[in-house]
């Protein structure tokens, strides 16, 4: 096991100048980074053919640490850059990593349209229910009643369920995991990357600094314990009532469907156009 960790570190992390990383000790982002690397390693993907694009935020800092083709784009826009990359070179494996604010507030429109369009991209969304990088302002996933830097009296808006939103918007593969359920996370990310079509992996994570502290949720371990206690599998959730599911985290694969592949459709159009001209 330690040798494997050594090998993964050696093979996938950038060694020049990048560490120590910018994240707070105990932040869930590091766990996601580990899961992403293990997933990619398990699929034996070529690093040259991998593109990891992010937006802006704590989650958005991830690409700089890994030895792929990496892109740190603008806040909310990772999927738009990824769309251009994938269309220009469909042989690339294009992944994005985004925060909840990044993906569903400023980037919300791009997110639903990417899901609808069903281009073969993988979107990893680290949902820590808050704007971490800018200091704990509420995000579209901050729960009703929570405290935030911009919700001193308790939040009066209602949260998005990102995975369910992705299903409705038309994504081919949608899963939810948490930073507590790590082996499952490795598997979900690998499945998402392998899937032809738009895949979303929502990952419930802890921002104990900007969210947990304000809401008296304890240290990272306590917060992760909370994810463990609240989690129910998709299969189990199907047997529970809405009241029973209140405040639970449904984990596993929410949807996995096959739809016409965008780049293949595009090729068909090119063939028709060539015949006509």
């Amino acid at each position: 096991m330690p040798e494997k960790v050594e090998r993964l570190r050696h093979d996938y992390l950038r060694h020049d100048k990048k560490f120590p990383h910018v994240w707070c000790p105990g932040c869930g982002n590091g766990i996601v980074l580990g899961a992403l690397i293990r997933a990619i390693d398990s699929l034996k993907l070529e690093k040259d053919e991998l593109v990891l694009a992010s937006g802006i935020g704590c989650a958005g800092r991830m690409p700089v640490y890994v030895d792929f083709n990496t892109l740190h784009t603008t806040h909310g826009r990772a999927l738009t850059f990824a769309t251009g990359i994938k269309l220009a070179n469909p042989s690339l494996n294009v992944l994005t990593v985004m925060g909840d604010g990044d993906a569903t507030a400023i980037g919300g429109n791009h997110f639903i349209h990417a899901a609808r369009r069903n281009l073969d991209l993988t979107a990893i969304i680290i949902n820590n229910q808050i704007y971490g990088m800018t200091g704990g302002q509420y995000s579209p996933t901050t729960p009703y009643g929570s405290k935030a830097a911009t919700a001193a009296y308790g939040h009066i808006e209602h949260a998005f369920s990102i995975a369910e939103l992705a299903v409705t918007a038309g994504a081919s593969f949608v899963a939810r995991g948490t930073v507590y359920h790590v082996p499952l996370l490795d598997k979900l990310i690998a499945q998402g990357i392998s899937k032809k079509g738009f895949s979303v992996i929502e990952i419930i994570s802890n921002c104990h600094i900007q969210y947990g502290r304000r809401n008296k949720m304890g240290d990272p371990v306590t917060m992760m314990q909370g994810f463990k206690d609240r989690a129910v599998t998709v299969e189990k959730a199907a047997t529970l009532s809405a009241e029973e599911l209140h405040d639970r985290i449904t984990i596993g694969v929410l949807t996995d469907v096959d739809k016409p592949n965008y780049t293949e459709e595009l090729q068909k159009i090119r063939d028709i156009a060539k015949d006509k001209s």
Partner: protein
Amino acid sequence: MTEQATRQVLQGNEAIVEGALAAGCRFFAGYPITPASEIAELMSLRLPAAGGTFIQMEDEIASMGAVIGASLAGVKSLTATSGPGFSLMQENLGYACVAEVPCVVVNVMRAGPSTGLPTSPAQGDVMQARWGTHGDHPIIVLSVSTVSDCFDITVHAFNLSEKYRVPVIILSDEVVSHTREAVFLPAPEKIEVVERIRPSVPPEWYIPYEDNSRGVPAMAVLGDGYRHHVTGLIHDNKGFPTDRPEEVNAFQRRQFRKITNGFYEIQMTKSFMMEDAEVAVIAYGSVSRSALHAIKAAREKGVKAGLLQLITLFPFPKRNVDPVLRQCRAVLVPEMNMGQISREVKRVNLSSKVVTINRVDGQFITPTEIYNKLLSM
């Protein structure tokens, strides 16, 4: 393929599409807006046949993002819009400046601000094209005044963008973009097409933002084996974020130096009847069409008038403007805005007499207006 130029009757927007395709553009992302939509529509027809990609994105922010992504993956890319969409593109346009991603953006100007006067002609976006995105940054802005320009200047735009790794803005306006004229399109083999310089060193030696005499680093393409990091943060020569003052300073200054180094090639103007001119019109875009009629009419009345048509608006072609200011007793700058370029002209030589015509009522500046002003100068 013919060796001959082919004669066609085209609309300005159509000629932009032909120019882009001739320059090797194979990716277009955009969002519909009058008076630019014909560019997207024609691209959706033509690109697939050329093996390229057209995509209509959910908005102009996304369009600009996709254009940058496609260019990073090695495909020459274009988007086209008008004022409201151009405003939305500004943040990602800044990203293209900082990450030095070649791309071309057409803004068919309409009267603003905001939704403004759809879709009356105007030239109100000149300064936005130069300074619309935040922070100091290099950018090239070109303008077109005839359908034939639309073809030629679009080819130039791609070439400059590839050569200097900088976004190039083409400012058209409603009049130029919707005018139909006969044009001669050169045979493909007669068109000079420039490609970005790719790295030639082995990947482990590649330093993505390494300076050189031109100030333009060799550009790897995503997936070609030169794995590196691309960011909108100010970065060191390896592409990684830095806040060390000496690295930040070197980065920022190289951005300006690469444009200054290429200034003579980038600054493009056309002179008409300037040899013996005593008064001159300095104009760009559709207004220079009126100006050409006006100087001819003025000459018939014995006024020695000439025209300097600006193609490059930024970097401002001061080395071509300065001799005109020295030669003529007065210069007229007619614009469909409150004086965005006349201010630049005045800055070239503060002692020159610069007269303006400014129209902001959504109406085109006519030859007669320019003619009358010329006779009074």
